[in-house]
């Protein structure tokens, strides 16, 4: 058990960082929406799932096969752009149709949560029963689609002392970090970003100060959706296949990561994502991979017992109990 852990230490670290990068990107979407609306956006996982299909569609349409090296980076960027656009648009559409009417009527957060669950079921079924069948020609049950034929399996390895890093892991990590830096700059440096921060802090005052709240909320969903889309493209690099319920567990984990880091806190999502990815991989090398999710959720409970607002705390806004 411990031997496994020691032998597997570096591979699981690298794996954990790559996985954590994807969690972190998804967690950003949860955390931003939570920061602004105080809503657990359950449908975010399905926005991600739509993104994976958009990415797949783009490589299929392009008809590339066996790309590797720099061409691969180009293809990944293209996938990320298409998936980001579709997922971002989808997230905005979701906000306008499912959440805005509730928000306008001052509905309780619980009602919004149920609306989110409904929207999540709707998007999943829409993709599973209608879109996947029409566009990709597979049945709902056999709906697992992969990208093997399009990518050359990335066997190239970067060798750093005892550490072997595969190309795909490196690409996922770098891509995710780039997006996070971009997001951090956007939220901290731009006018819209300031709007988002002020709304998160105090929506009433933000409105009085002339912040267009609808626009802020839309932007939040758009940015979260784009992050999910990029995560979807990177997910393909790492896991190579998708289906219509791929978002579910990943979404729960990403939300866990967001809470772990301190929900509403953008840097917290980052810390939480990597922490969760690493701990999950260490946990599965210690206890066996079937206990991976149990380890993840037990750690969440443990961390929250000692740090009730997550590792970094809620800094995007004050806790409004």
């Amino acid at each position, binding site marked *: 058990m411990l031997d496994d852990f020691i032998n597997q230490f570096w591979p699981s670290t690298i794996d954990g960082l790559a996985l954590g990068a994807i969690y972190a990107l998804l967690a950003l979407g949860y955390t931003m929406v939570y920061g602004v609306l105080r809503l657990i956006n359950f449908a975010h996982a399905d926005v991600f799932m739509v993104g994976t299909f958009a990415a797949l569609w783009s490589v299929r349409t392009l008809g590339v096969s066996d790309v590797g090296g720099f061409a691969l980076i180009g293809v990944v960027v293209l996938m990320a752009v298409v998936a980001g656009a579709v997922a971002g648009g989808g997230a905005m559409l979701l906000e306008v149709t499912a959440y805005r009417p509730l928000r306008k009527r001052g509905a309780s957060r619980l009602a919004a949560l149920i609306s989110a669950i409904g929207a999540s079921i709707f998007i999943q079924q829409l993709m599973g029963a209608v879109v996947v069948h029409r566009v990709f020609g597979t049945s709902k049950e056999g709906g697992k689609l992969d990208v093997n034929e399009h990518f050359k399996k990335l066997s190239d390895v970067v060798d750093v002392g005892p550490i072997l890093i595969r190309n795909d892991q490196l690409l996922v990590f770098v891509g995710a970090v780039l997006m996070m830096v971009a997001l951090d700059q956007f939220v901290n440096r731009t006018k819209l970003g300031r709007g988002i921060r002020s709304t998160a802090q105090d929506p009433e005052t933000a409105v009085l100060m002339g912040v267009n709240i609808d626009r802020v909320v839309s932007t939040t969903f758009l940015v979260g959706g784009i992050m999910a889309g990029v995560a979807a493209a990177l997910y393909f690099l790492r896991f190579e296949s998708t289906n219509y319920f791929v978002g579910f567990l990943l979404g729960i984990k990403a939300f866990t990561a967001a809470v772990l880091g301190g929900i509403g806190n953008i840097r917290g999502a980052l810390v939480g994502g990597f922490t969760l990815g690493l701990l999950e991989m260490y946990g599965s090398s210690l206890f066996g991979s079937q206990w991976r999710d149990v380890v993840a959720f037990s750690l969440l409970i443990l961390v*929250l017992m000692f740090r009730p607002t997550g590792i970094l705390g809620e800094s995007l806004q004050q806790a409004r109990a």
Partner: protein
Amino acid sequence: MNLTKNGNGNDGPGGLRAARDRLSLDPLRNAWSTAPGPVRWAVYLLLVIGGLLLPNQAIGEFMAPSGSDWPSMLSNQIAIYVLLALGLNVVVGMAGLLDLGYVAFYAVGGYTMAIFATKYGWSFWESLFLAIAFAGLSGLILGAPTLRLRGDYLAIVTLGFGEIVKRTANNSSYVNGPRGVQGIPHPPTLSEFEIFGVQPLKYGLLDSRPYYYLLLLFIIIAIIFVKRLERSRVGRAWASIREDEDAAELMGVPTFKFKLAAFAIGAAIGGSGGVVFASQQTSINPQNFEFLVSALILAGVVLGGSGNIPGVMLGAAVLAWLPERFRGLSDYRMLIFGAALVLMMIFRPEGLWPSRQRKAELAEGTGGMGSMGAEVAGPGQTVTAEEGK
């Protein structure tokens, strides 16, 4: 701050508000609150008789026309969901704690029944009490370390707990992992007596009506129990926690203790549902306890009108019935179901049948569950707000 709903004499946008007012249950409520005691008891009696007559074929033809067996739909889906919703309502509706992993307690009940009946030969009734105790205990075990967390942190922890229970069952060879436990005995037949062509105390394979009656009994007990609690000191403590936990604490309400009690009671009711489920199905596996079940029960509670017992029962029954009723639509039924959830929330965010107290709270604030952050009215709405005052 809620600017749109204090609209006395406010016509509101289009006919929407008028339509909503027509749906109002207030005349009924007034009649009910002034009704004398014997009338109330008569109504309760009629409701129980209605519940007993529900598996009737004539009702079944309307409710389940596509050939599916109406009594088994009632017992497998509707009655179980109603019972679970009553339990979750204690946690969410009364104490205001958001629980996204309620299915865990249902699973604890089901697995306790399965293990003790198949491995130790306990009878249904013995296992039932043990399972209820275990489910309540698991509520305490989860609650003790986590109930100091607020709001959505609690939500994610309970969600995590639900997944932990499911995956542990999935990974343990003791309960056959993903294949689950088979050969769980039916409850022992208490009597063979027959009335109107039913043997209500003979628990067999073919007729699911006895299970429905058993669940009906559980539901009635749960209603009485919960209703008594609601009117007691405990219920008032829960309401105060739901509305403002800090204020409740300052007023001397031991909030932690009462939250723990809500968790344990809700869990025990959920556990009893799991027992009946396991003994009727005779086999259970971890796939019976997906997150979706938690989500649907919660949706039933909120859709019906969180905190109001008849409303919660109505909501759960509707949500359990809809997907079964429209099985004919096969692939599209869950699609429509998801859309229906969103639409119902848009048109009746306070639920189909909210309690009067809750409705008043909602009109003032948000009924203790807090509002969405950016719920401040936009520029277009300030005018309505002025008029509404």
